[in-house]
């Protein structure tokens, strides 16, 4: 076991952090908010150029050949700086799905553009409904005689919204083996698609997708029909892992900003930092952060585990634990800021809202608890 970064990883982490500090500060965020589209495609191409999108894509597929560690470095930095780029949905899940499960033709066609940041695909799986803790998919893909499919259904809260090139849509189909799911590559302007733009709690742009008999040819079934359940499970697991990694970064920022606040805020003639009760609450925040980080390390080690069911159990458990811990840290951060903690202009509240979004996307704690209960 080894818990230290390599020298290359240290350099990489520094460069990622520096980029985030320069580009995701409050001013540029405010500027982005003024524009209609929150998802800045030119910024996305920039991070593609830096190699972030292809960080954990193998060299032979055009990526940088890194591991899940590089991925976690990027995600933690994005959390730390509230980048609110759709790295999880588009940079990680979509590219990993295509790289790991895509047919050669699909990989050749899409991956180079995705890794470069020129094109963007987003996973569209969430429908906001659950069955005994597991996500329920009602979107239906019916196969026609000529071999193409018609896809009908609705997806909810799909980040980053309409400013993408396509979606990877999960749907039920009788053509696939149990549990009868498949993934379809659908361009955003396909006939029969309606995109309803929405803005989420943390300011992210998303959309609801309504599909009415959207035609998808056979060669756009991702990975062919027999791989879909593995792919969907993997997508869910890697998304959970990514949320955990981002949450660690978010909690780090909350910890240090709160620490700085306690040192600089004076009441009754002394800085708040002198009050032992507050010192101890901060110590508890730190303890929860490091406990969560230890759990993240378990997750990073389990992503490529040969037993997918075991991998899933670990990651679901981690998401449950880290969601609660980081949200508690974030709540405490708000509380320890006093009145300024609930002023919207104070960044401290944004961390909490971001955590609510990333951990609420596929159902919240109750849903996770239900699934864990079935272990």
């Amino acid at each position, binding site marked *: 076991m080894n818990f230290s970064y390599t020298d290359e990883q240290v350099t990489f982490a520094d460069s990622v952090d520096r980029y985030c500090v320069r580009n995701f500060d409050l001013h540029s965020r405010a500027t982005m908010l003024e524009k209609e589209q929150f998802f800045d495609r030119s910024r996305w191409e920039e991070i593609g150029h830096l190699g972030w999108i292809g960080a954990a894509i193998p060299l032979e597929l055009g990526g940088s050949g890194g591991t899940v560690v590089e991925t976690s470095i990027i995600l933690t930095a994005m959390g730390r700086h509230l980048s609110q780029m759709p790295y999880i949905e588009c940079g990680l899940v979509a590219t990993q799905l295509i790289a790991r499960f895509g047919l050669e033709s699909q990989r050749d066609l899409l991956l180079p553009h995705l890794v470069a940041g020129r094109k963007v695909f987003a996973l569209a799986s969430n429908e906001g409904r659950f069955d005994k803790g597991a996500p329920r998919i009602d979107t239906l893909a019916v196969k026609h005689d000529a071999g193409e499919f018609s896809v009908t259904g609705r997806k909810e809260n799909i980040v980053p919204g309409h400013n993408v090139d396509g979606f990877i849509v999960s749907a039920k189909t009788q053509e696939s083996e149990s549990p009868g799911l498949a993934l379809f590559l659908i361009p955003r302007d396909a006939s029969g698609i309606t995109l309803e733009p929405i803005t989420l709690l943390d300011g992210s742009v998303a959309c609801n997708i309504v599909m009415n008999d959207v035609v998808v040819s056979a060669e756009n079934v991702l990975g062919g029909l027999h791989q879909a359940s593995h792919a969907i499970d993997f997508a869910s697991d890697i998304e959970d892992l990514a949320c955990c990694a981002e949450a660690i970064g978010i909690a780090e920022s909350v910890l240090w900003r709160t620490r700085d606040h306690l040192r600089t805020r004076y009441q009754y003639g002394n800085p708040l930092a002198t009050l032992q009760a507050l010192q101890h609450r901060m110590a508890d925040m730190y303890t929860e952060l490091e406990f969560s980080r230890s*759990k993240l390390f378990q997750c990073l080690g389990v992503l490529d585990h040969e037993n997918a069911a075991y991998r899933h159990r670990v990651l679901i458990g981690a998401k449950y634990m880290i969601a609660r811990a980081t949200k508690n840290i974030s709540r405490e951060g708000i509380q320890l800021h006093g009145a300024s903690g609930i002023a919207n202009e104070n960044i401290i509240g944004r961390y909490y809202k971001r955590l609510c979004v990333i951990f609420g996307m596929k159902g919240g704690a109750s849903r996770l608890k239900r699934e*864990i209960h079935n272990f």
Partner: protein
Amino acid sequence: MNFAPDPADEEFRLRVRAFINEFCPEEARRVSTRPAPEKVKAWRDLLVTQKWLAPHWPVDWGGLDISPVRRYILQEELAATITSQMDGIALHLVAPVIYTFGSLKQKLRYLPKILSGEETWCQGFSEPESGSDVLSAKTTAERQGDYYTVTGEKIWTTGAHRADMMFALVRVRAAGRLQHGLSFVVFSMRDPAVRIRPITTIDGVHHFNQVSLNGVRVPTANLIGEEGKGWHYARFLLVNERALVAQAPNTRKTLRRLRAYLDGFDEDRVHSYELADFKERLTELEIEQDALEFMVMRVLHSTPGDPFNDGLAAALKIKGAQLRQRANELFFDAHGAQSLQNKTATSVSDDGQLSEPAKSFLFSLSGSIAGGTNEIQRNIIAGMVLGLT
């Protein structure tokens, strides 16, 4: 970064486990009661021969040159046996001070008998007025010629009623002047000037004592190292125990027992919502136990002395104690009415009368108090990591 256990380390673990399965007698596997020392002597002697009883000791004195991770693996595997009750105070707390700071004569006098179990020890640090604030200790050692006369009170002394020797932090007075620092001295508990009063803890068991030192004559040859540096020695070496204080192996053992209950679950006796609550609490604990074990690994791989690593060790102790308490509480709750029943008072052993689940749970409340309270750990974090003090 590599999060997978080293295959060679796991192979070592399997060898240890196989050895225990083959050679550890049945009497030495039950950890909940305290069997007679003779029953486990053969097992102890075998461990000494393997150099597994005190692997952290220098090789010359019976230790083994293995990594901290492998030492921890040994602890984890041996937690299944009575080894965990074999005078950890002597093996882990006083011996390291003696072999690091003691003279050759002192090493020869004390280490072999600790290893063989011939002499047992107790720790005289806390006093009625000095708990967390160890440096305020008032026990004095008046030095005259070749002797100290030790006077004072020590409290919460684990196993004093069974111990042959005590190591204590005392304040030397020489030529009328009281020293600023504390000194580390050792002496026999058989001395007539030593009086012991038992203290029963909340679990109904006699672990602790108050020890009155009423002018105990201790040769100055029994001073370990230099006068005034006793606390420094003790603290420096506690660093080696940072991973153990989380008690992760014990907690894992409790969780395994609880998981096994689900296999023998009797549907007629337990309502389905009780089962649901039990499963939920157990699963949550298992999720967190994994995190705890990774935190232990992080501490084992970190270098002490770095403020961040000291903070991490403090956080580990807090979490370890909390998880142990929650696991034991679930164990207590799971046994329902049985947990509430005291055993019939026919036994004269010092194991008390409460049920096993009650004893385990209630004693686990000490985990967040002993060895540096959770509050002290928070002070450490606030100071060393957060820069708030």
